[in-house]
């Protein structure tokens, strides 16, 4: 049992296990050393208990070395946190002479839905997850990450109560698979999320391309040529892009997929004549596991009238 008072004190309270599964029993003992309690010298001390503010009766007996001991058993602790007070009657008042904190809760729930995103501004890998069921106990949550070949496990700790944190660039190994997982630990156990095995570069969030020019090709056809520039920060990456366009009044977009990013130009047909169109483009890594960039800034173009 865990001694929770120094031996020289007037009283010391010892608890079986300070943290128990919700609804379980808690046993505690309070040892009174009369000579250490100022003003309590004579007569036999009457020991009583308070669970927070709720009076509880213990079984009192003579202890070794002239001490008095009271044993308490709380059949079911149903609140996450409580204070067990050991009290002694003195001058008609109930004196608090010792205390122990007891807690009840559950092992942590399993974190889930782990996903990560690499921010190209600082190459920090930000991961988010869903917290498991609340164990009502102080819980240590950590995101853990390990590169494929090295035993070292690093990662990051989310700020209190948050379910995300960022692994700094210096702990990452780019262009190699890494393993990431979340652990939640409290006094009653540990839970681990599924393991995510990714190359950080595959989950890079790209900057959108910039649409540069749009014009008809040649004037008589219903075709249009577009040119664009890749965002400098991800220009070194092979990307595949999507173009969406819609006529001004038309609420729905048409989408052209599978456009090789580095082409920088494309042609598309079947546009109506003399019509104002809105165009936007977005890209992602051609490994198709990454995130789409935002849509580029929109660009408008009015196709030429049909030749008479």
């Amino acid at each position: 049992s865990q001694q929770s008072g120094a031996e020289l004190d007037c009283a010391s309270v010892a608890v079986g296990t300070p943290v128990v599964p919700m609804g379980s029993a808690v046993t505690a003992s309070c040892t009174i050393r009369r000579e250490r309690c100022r003003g309590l010298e004579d007569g036999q001390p009457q020991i009583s208990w308070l669970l927070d503010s709720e009076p509880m009766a213990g079984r009192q007996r003579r202890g070794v070395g002239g001490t008095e001991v009271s044993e308490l058993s709380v059949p079911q602790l149903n609140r996450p946190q409580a204070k067990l007070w050991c009290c002694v009657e003195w001058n008609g008042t109930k004196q608090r002479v010792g205390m122990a904190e007891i807690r009840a809760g559950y092992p942590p729930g399993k974190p889930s839905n782990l996903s990560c995103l690499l921010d190209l501004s600082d190459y920090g890998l930000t991961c988010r997850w869903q917290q498991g069921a609340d164990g009502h106990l102080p819980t240590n949550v950590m995101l853990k990450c390990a590169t494929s070949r090295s035993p070292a496990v690093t990662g990051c700790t989310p700020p209190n109560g948050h379910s995300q944190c960022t692994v700094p660039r210096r702990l990452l190994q780019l262009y190699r698979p890494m393993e990431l997982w979340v652990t939640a630990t409290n006094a009653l156990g540990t839970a681990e999320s599924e393991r995510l095995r990714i190359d950080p570069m595959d989950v890079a969030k790209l900057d959108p391309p910039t649409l540069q020019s749009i014009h008809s090709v040649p004037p008589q056809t219903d075709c249009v040529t577009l040119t664009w520039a890749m965002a400098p920060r991800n220009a070194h990456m092979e990307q595949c892009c999507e173009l969406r366009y819609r006529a001004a009044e038309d609420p729905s977009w048409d989408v052209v997929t599978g456009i090789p990013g580095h082409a920088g130009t494309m042609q598309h047909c079947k546009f109506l004549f003399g019509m104002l169109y809105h165009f936007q483009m977005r890209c992602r890594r051609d490994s198709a596991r990454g995130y789409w960039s935002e849509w580029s800034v929109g660009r408008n173009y009015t196709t030429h009238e049909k030749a008479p």
Partner: protein
Amino acid sequence: APLAELSGDHDFQLFLHKNLEFTRKIRGDVAALQRVVCDTFQLCTEEELQLVRPDPPLMQAPLDQCLKRGFQAEVCFSQIRAGLHAYQDSLGAVLQLLPEHTALVETLQLDAANLSTNIQQQMEDLGLDTVTLPAEHRSPPPAFSTDFQQQVGGFFILANFQRFLETAYRALRHLAR
């Protein structure tokens, strides 16, 4: 290992594809630092600095094995790794030269280390002999006695690193399908 065998291996091709991209990224970052040196110190072209080129050259990072026709991947990769390792150290001189760009220079050092590790792990996957380069006791960056020497030194470290990366890139591309 003979090249023919390697070039068909899917994992090896994925490794090449990824690390070609990684090398392009590193070259882009080196070019960005070269622009900073040009803007800040007006040191922009090698042609104007022939008489003050550091002697002996600051960096010993030969890639001759990667330039031979039908080169040995194993030997070429080892030269690339040794060069990356040496440049990680000498970039320390660029750190001192460009304190406001510490983040970019440190990223370069991290990328050089990652690329070297990626090559090492791929060589291990292919059963090729690899040397584990000392990560801890690194050699100190070159020291210079004058500001001008330090600026010229920084200029040539970046110029040589850019050339080194171009050769390494060509070697990797030669192996890629």
